[in-house]
């Protein structure tokens, strides 16, 4: 059974968001990394902006490849390029391994994301 971390917000496509002032850290949930299996490649294109619901990169595992969808709209402040050399970090510590740091431009969108309890219920469906 995968874990859901309290205090984060979650998207239906299994990204998590940690709000830090005007910024949002974005990663993938424990459920997502479990579904993917051993992640072997993290593709992080050098984008300037992300738009909620649109792709901002992709993950590959031995089993499949999967697109990453932005859970919020904003300007990319930082990409965690360490993941390109250490994709296993997403498996080992999904909630400690952020992928993007985004300067949120539409904070109202955060209300559309799920809290931990709602995400847990979403996974149980």
């Amino acid at each position, binding site marked *: 059974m995968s874990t859901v971390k309290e205090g984060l917000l979650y998207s239906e496509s299994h990204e998590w968001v940690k709000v830090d002032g005007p910024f949002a850290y974005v990663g993938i949930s424990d459920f997502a990394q479990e579904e993917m299996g051993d992640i072997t490649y993290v593709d992080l294109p050098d984008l300037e902006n992300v738009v909620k619901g649109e792709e901002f990169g992709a993950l590959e595992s*031995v089993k499949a490849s999967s697109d990453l969808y932005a859970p919020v709209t904003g300007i990319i402040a930082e990409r965690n390029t360490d993941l390109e050399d250490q994709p296993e970090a997403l498996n080992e510590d999904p909630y400690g391994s952020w992928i993007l740091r985004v300067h949120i431009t539409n904070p109202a969108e955060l209300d559309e994301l799920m809290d931990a309890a709602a995400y847990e219920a979403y996974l149980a469906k």
Partner: protein
Amino acid sequence: MRYYDRLIFELSKKGRTGYSLQAPQVKAECTIPSGLLRAEAPALPEVSEVDVVRHYTNLSQMNFGVDTGFYPLGSCTMKYNPKINEEMANLAGFQGIHPLQDASTVKGVKEVYDVLDSYLATITGMKHFTFKPCAGAHGELTGLMIMRSYHMSRGDMARTKVIVPDSAHGTNPASASVCGLEIVVVKSNANGLVDVEDLKPLLGPDIAGIMMTNPNTCGLFEKDIKEIADLVHECGGLLYYDGANMNPLLGAVRPGEMGFDIMHLNLHKTFSTPHGGGGPGSGPVGVCEKLVPFLGQNVSGFNGNFGVIVRALAYVLMLGKQNLRLAGRLATLNANYIKESLRDAYKLPIGSVCKHEFVFDGLIDDGSATGKPGATTLDVAKRLLDFGYHAPTIYFPLLFHQALMIEPTETESKETLDAFIDVMHTIAAEAAQDPEILHAAPHCAPITRPDETTAARNPILKYQDEA
């Protein structure tokens, strides 16, 4: 089978040669810029002729193919390749020709293309085919280029999106992306079919068309195809038929009559030409009448893989109309026979009558009741190798987490199917009793479980001399 794992580089002995040539008598002028020339000779293996012959013969004996055993690889239609196909392709008049020789000297070759074109048009309901594409995905790309050319010829530049079902072969979105088109995904409904209600809001003036496989990758016939075709045509889009799953429809339904405008056929699937390592492939693309002017896309140097086209024609001529029709029906019967025989041991997410293939979603009893970790689809596939079978397609389609996709084709006898069913039952019983047997499989293969994760994360792509 004797285990053999040498690399040809390991057989290399300094100064050894296969044969010796005289020193060149002519001094040729080198026009390659010096910056592009290597300073020293490449480290190629130095081996004798017999070393080479034994090396590759030993490797070939570790191959598994349709000629060695049952190969139920879902979606790949690994049917037997009749040897008469080879005989025909090896006829001197076909084998010894050159693509640049004068057309008047290869009239028979032109006839092969024309006759197969007319047969494929009859079988599919298309008007004409191009034989240039050399594989299925190459055909998809060609078909999408035709689609785009058509829209652009009418000055309709806004159609930049292609709709692809979530159950599609991965090559569909890949081909669309290579063609510069944007991909829009349409969802499947609970019955595993394209959800018409989900499709409707996606249709509009920006849609170039839809790519569909019918039967789809779950082995199910898209019953709403006529409605889907009407909706897509109404919005000005075209329908592309991915012919990967054409086998069960031979002589039963024609894609042209379902409303498709463009399609490819995999001759290396449906028309019994060699597939995979035994290729090369061929993915001819057919179009309806109004698209014939756009058929001449320049996607390969000459006219495709001619030898494969001869083999496909031999197959059609050998079977004839009645037997081709039977091929599709027997493929469907064989798949349903295995499905019904194994549904007591494997989870069947969609229980309705399938076409040429079907998908299980893992074991009913994976053995986790024993307290040990349960056996997965990967474990079942690995265990099958011990019994001398090629494993089915696993973890595809992505709709099911433990997908195990079986396609027997029509060329297998009931005895072969029964033997496979017995083994699948044996494996299920093993899993229930002691899943460790499956976790440790294969027990009899030359390689057990390669570390795929490390291989993907840190691939070693060339020979590295230890010294």
